[in-house]
């Protein structure tokens, strides 16, 4: 074990823990543009042959969106990071079993969802609860908040956190990740109709948090 690397990690974790550092990065700017399928398939084929750099490109392409989804599921930055890492490690371990040309995103998110479900089961056993950073952190002024009314954003964020986890996972895959219902059903291991129903119910609940008096400027 490299002693200084270990200490380095401690500092890295420590310097990024403070709530002041949360919620300060515009999401859209961080997200890499979707990778063309052909290019992604090349990376995956190379990764199956043991090319670490190719797999690193896959990680680069999916890390931010995967982390974002998991953060909204766990409300805990560290758990979301752990789960994201775990997902990619499992994907790397099983990459040879993936059929190149099929739906990698759904395959990867399925792994992530299984990890999340396992985490929840562990929490239930320990009777622990996930801290809710998204609710307690101060949004503060910034590009994201300026773009949309911060009160609405806070209300909707809080309402999403209140949604049952099954509904939240489906809604965010649809709204944030832009997945179609078929892929959502693959990721969550449910039928397409159930996926559609969950997204509908979640949106039905959330739309109530958009108040009438904020609509004047909308078209």
């Amino acid at each position, binding site marked *: 074990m*490299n*002693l*200084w690397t*270990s*200490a*380095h*990690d*401690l*500092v*890295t*974790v*420590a*310097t*990024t823990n*403070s709530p*002041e*550092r949360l*919620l300060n*990065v515009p*999401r*859209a700017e*961080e997200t890499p543009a979707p990778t063309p399928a052909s290019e992604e398939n090349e990376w995956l084929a190379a990764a199956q042959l043991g090319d*670490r750099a190719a*797999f*690193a490109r896959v*990680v*680069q392409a999916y890390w*931010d969106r995967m*982390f974002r989804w998991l*953060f*909204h599921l766990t409300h805990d*930055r*560290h758990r*979301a*990071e*752990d789960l*994201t*890492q*775990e997902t*990619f*490690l499992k994907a790397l*371990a099983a990459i040879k079993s993936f059929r190149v040309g099929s739906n990698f995103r759904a395959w990867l998110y399925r792994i992530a969802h299984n990890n999340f479900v396992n985490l929840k089961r562990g929490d239930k056993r320990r009777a622990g609860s996930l801290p809710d*950073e*998204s609710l307690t952190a101060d*949004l503060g002024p910034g590009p994201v908040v300026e773009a949309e009314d911060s009160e*609405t*954003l806070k209300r*909707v964020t809080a309402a*999403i956190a209140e949604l049952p986890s099954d509904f939240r996972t489906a809604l965010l895959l*649809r*709204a*944030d990740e832009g997945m179609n219902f078929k892929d959502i059903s693959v990721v969550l291991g449910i039928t397409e109709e159930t996926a559609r129903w969950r*997204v*509908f119910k979640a*949106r*039905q609940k*959330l*739309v109530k948090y*958009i108040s009438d008096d904020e609509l004047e400027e909308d*078209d």
Partner: protein
Amino acid sequence: MNCETIQNRIIALAVATEQTADVREHVADCTACQIMLTKAKRLDRVLTQLPVPSSQLAKETFMEQILAEGPVIRTKPIAPSAMGSGTFPSVAKMLGLVSPKLLAGLAAGVMVTVGGAWFMTRPKPPVVEPELAEKPKHEFLARSVKHHVALSQSRTAPERLSIFSKWSTDVTTEAKDVYKAASRDEISNIAALYEKTVAQGIVEQAKQLDDHTMTRPERLNRLQAAMTLLNSAAAESTSLAAEAPPAAQAAFNRMATAANNARTELLTIIEKRGA
């Protein structure tokens, strides 16, 4: 179609702008459904703007692991965390290969084997296998863990500033202790550690000191104490850079630069806020 059906359709579409012709036709003449459509559009926008913290550092660290030689999970130590969940999950957890029960069984097996081996060989002069020998506890790592735990329990910027200050002192002490024997990579790692402790620790926390957390004189005191520490570290690092082996010179220069930069930033904070 009645309004309820139309509004359900509006809600069902993730992209509210892609409404069918019959919905558009109804909405054009119905105020209630127009409001619902506007709300749905707004919800779509909000859902794409949900706040998320940055995971850039974790990503970069992970990418380095992926690109490093050898098995990914063995290149990274497990950082203890008081938050109950560290940046790096346990080896077993990461691979999902070993269940806790199996791990416990394995540990028991190892203990029985080791105990049996000890029993069989006890008349002989004691020979300790290298792997089983107790490794010396490393003070620096122990102190780093202690600081880390203290940080996770800290609640205010002044507390964190104090912890990072002590931590940076520990790092400089470690650099002084090992620079003659350390390889270029090792001393460079220490320098990087110092840079991070100072720039992302001391300076960041100094920025958080405000009138809500302490009075101006107190704040000035804290900032001046931190500046004194940085001054001393910069001077010492510069001095060591002059006499250190070539492998360590660059590292000490980096540390001196980091200390000077941080001192300048603290000075700016004092001038701006009139602390």
